[in-house]
Every structure is written in C-alpha cells, then in structure tokens.
C-alpha cells in the first residue's frame, strides 16, 4: 500500500509553494513513498511514555534586557531586493 498519493504530493507542493510538473509529481510520489515507508520503522518502538525532544540542551526562555537599538539602514535592507520602489519591496499583483 502506498503511503502517499500523487494528489497528496500535489497538495503538499502547493502548501510548500512549489510548482511541480506532472512528471515531477510522479517522481516525488515514488521517492517520498519510499522514504515514508522507511520512516514507518519507527512504529516498531513503543513511545507511549517517552517525552519528545525538540532541543537537546536544558535551556528554556532565554531572556535579555529589552534595550532599543537602531534598525538596519533602509539602503541595506533593500540592497538585495529583486524589485523595489519608493523604499519598499515591490511584488506582483496580489489580487487579479
């Protein structure tokens, strides 16, 4: 039984903002199915009472003083922008 269908792969690609061709969708379905099938070996383990690890060190809520500092100069911020206008990032139309 396959773990992921081509429709699911297309949906995931949309969520991840990736445009994929029909051919790519087929390739990724095959590959992701193999990886997910492989990953299901984790189900051999009983983890009912095991807490999850998101971070290996014992640290939590690292705080610092809230001291205002200068932001980046506008020129620097826009330096790498593919498109800009009037000191702002310019993008294609959001609504058609």
């Amino acid at each position, binding site marked *: 039984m396959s773990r992921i269908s081509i429709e699911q792969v297309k949906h995931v690609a949309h969520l991840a*903002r990736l445009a994929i061709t029909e051919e790519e969708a087929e390739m990724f379905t095959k590959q992701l199915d193999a990886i997910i099938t492989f990953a299901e070996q984790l189900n051999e383990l009983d983890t009912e009472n095991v807490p999850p690890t998101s971070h290996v060190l014992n640290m939590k809520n690292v705080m610092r003083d809230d001291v205002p500092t200068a932001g980046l100069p506008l020129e620097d911020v826009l330096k790498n922008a593919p498109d800009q206008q009037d000191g702002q990032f310019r993008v294609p139309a959001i*609504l058609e």
Partner: protein
Amino acid sequence: MALFDYKLSELHGMLHKKEISVSDLVDESFKRIAEVDEKVQAFLTLNEEQARAKAKELDEKLATETEFGLLFGMPIGIKDNIVTKGLRTTCASKILYNFDPIYDATVMERLHEADAITIGKLNMDEFAMGSSTENSGFQLTRNPWDLERVPGGSSGGSAAAVAAGEVPFALGSDTGGSIRQPAAFCGVVGLKPTYGRVSRYGLVAFASSLDQIGPITRTVEDNAYLLQAISGLDPMDSTSANVDVPDYVSALTGDIQGLKIAVPKEYLGEGVSEEVRQSVLDALKVLESLGATWEEVSLPHSKYALATYYLLASSEASANLARFDGVRYGYRTDNAKNLIDMYKQTRSEGFGNEVKRRIMLGTFALSSGYYDAYYKKAQKVRTLIKRDFENVFEKYDVIIGPTTPTPAFKIGEKTSDPLTMYANDILTIPVNLAGVPGISIPCGFVDGLPVGLQIIGKHFDESTIYRVAHAFEQATNYHKQKPTL
C-alpha cells in the same frame, strides 16, 4: 615542504622570526588555488583583493605591535552557507545566486578578531542537504585523493580545499555528518562541536535543532585553535550555551592513560565495510598501546536514527526555507502572473530536486493529520537515541567507531536513489540527534582512499575528544599523507 604542511604554531614561529610574511601565506593560498582548483573545484567565490589587503595590514601590525589574534595571518576558507558581509553567499543554490550579505555571521566576527584571513567561499550541497556535494547548484567538487570520487558532503568544498592544500583552515557546518563525513573522505580533521558551543547566528538555517558550525583542518592542534576562536556564548543566538570555553590546546597532553573507550557494536556491524572495520580495530590497538582500554557497548536505537533524522531535519527545513520567496533577496522568476504564482515559480526554478524533496517531506510530516504519526513520533525516538548516549557516557569517556561505512564513493554512484545516499550518514546522524560533539580524524587508507575514525564525547567535552585524537595522531602518520594533484 609546502607552507601549509606546517602547523599554526610553527607558522607563527616563522612569522615572528621574519622567515615568512602574512602576504606569503596568502600568496601560497591563491597560488595553490590557481594550480589545483580547476581540478578540485572547491571554491565558489574568491576574496582575493580583500585578502591581500588584509595580509598587508597584518604584516604592518606584525612589525609594529605586540598583541596578535589567535589565528593571526591564517588563511581560511568558509563554507558558503555562512554569511560574509560584502562577500557573495549562495548556499550553492540558484535561489541565492547573487546574495550579498549585509552583516557578518558571529563566527566571521570572531575570525576577524582573531586576525584570520578569509580566502573565499566553499562549495557544498545546496542548503547543506546531501552527502557528496553533488547537490550543488553550481559545480561538482572532486575528491583530491581520486578525482573520480566525491569529496563527501555537505561541506565537501571545505574538506577538499584543506586536503588539496589550498587553505590550512576551513569552516564547515554539520547537521547530520556534514563536517565529519567529508573530513573522513578527504583525510582531514573535522569536528562537529556540541550543539550550542558555537553561535549559529549568520549560518543559513537548515535544521535549527541540529546545525552546528565547526572547524576543518589538517591537524588536531590546528583544529583546537580554530574551535577556540569561534566558540562561546552569543547574545544573537539564544541557543548558544552559557558554558565556559576551556583552553582546548592545553588539553593536548598526549596522555590517555586509563581512558575508557566504548565501541558500539552497531557501528561495526552490518553495512560497514570489512576494510573500514579493520582500520578502526587497528586504531583501537594503537589507543590501547597508549594506555586506553575499550569495551563493546550497545546504542540500541541506532538503527532508528536515520528515519528520525530525515523526519525532523526535513520538517525544520520546510519551515526554515519558507523565507526564500523572491521578495527580499535572491532569485525571482521573470514569469509570474500574481504573488502566489511568483512564490511558486521562484522556488521551483531556484531550488534543486533534493531541496524540494526535503521541503515536501517536511511539509507532509508537519501537516494536519500526520503531525503526531511522523513528526512527534520522531521527536520521541530522538529522546530514546539521546538516552542511549547518556547511558554509555555514565561509564565511558568517549565512544569510538568509524565515521562512514565506506571510503569515498564514485561520482554518480548514489545519485539515483535518495535512500541509498542517506544511508551513508548512519554513523554520524545519531551524534547530531543527541547534540554531543564528534570528530573525524584520518586512521588509515583503503586502496589509496582515506578512512575516518570517529571519536564522540560528552556534551561540552571537546577537550577529551581532542586529547584522544591528538594522542592518536602523534602515534601515527596518516595525517602527514597528502594527495598528489
């Protein structure tokens, strides 16, 4: 003897005696790059003008001042996922082909303070996703020991540049083995520090709970100097640890009398080639002759590390790589009808297939209905893997095994099936999941290809790793071998 056959301490002696100048060191780097990089293809961007100017400045400082940085005058290559102000940083991805960073990573600031000289930026697998540097969006880096073979990855450019004698020092990053595996394949010394030892500020994020920057060098002593320069708390990275940085070089006593070594049976079992296994057993004999003892132990959840890693790292990557959207920096598609279409086309044209695969795997593992079954399950197994290490470290000082199951493989040999490529990292991935430090040092050759010995330590105990690695290095000659190019 080439200049970079000398250690930092020897080069500093020569500088102070005026036998060489800093400019000679920088000349040596660019001369060697001109000679061999056409073959090796380690560098993506060179910093020649700035490096030569910096060398002149340091030569003046040498003549007039008395205080010098720890890495004074040392040429260094930087993996291209570490941001360098004013020096193009691409992550070997088309999506950042023209990215000109507006700030320096914390490690770069520390290298400047240490008077090191940036020679250029080094090739890698795109966004550090890969084990052979074949996933670079720009060029194929080759193993200096055999140009038909991969240098390993993802820090393949960093390891190859050091092995080829182009730079004596390099920085890499390691998320699942990306420093240690290429170090093993290229016959150099590469350390992944404890998670939190080195600031990640300015390291373009792949998997934030696993990524660490670390040093790649030809000797253990040089490696310790470089780690010394870049380690320590950084207010810009809240996951950098508030733990004192010891004097790593002073740990290199050569004395490992009474050292207790654990050798996991899982690291010498199925999948590990007979020659690699034998090299590791020979290395253990050397360590025994120096007064250490070893026993076989078990890290019972090792076989689950690969699956755990690919679920967690890909999930984190899918979130981290959301920022590449063609709005603020990098590549943007020319053919977009509207904003959403622009995002999709930009990312599809800008990312390579391995990056897309991992983004999709991560997006799937985090999506509604699958989160508990995949992502959370993997986080729980991560706890079990971490406990395996804690149990062993209750009784032993270090864990030793091979760095990789085989020596360097051929270019193209493993590109057709992602899972085959991933399997190459089975011995390095558990270390990242547990957050402990690990090093790879040369411990032999199989058919002219280097083999790496992996030494794993307790959290924040890089000193013991270095002490063992140094003692082994002093007792052997593997680190003195050089590829002919």
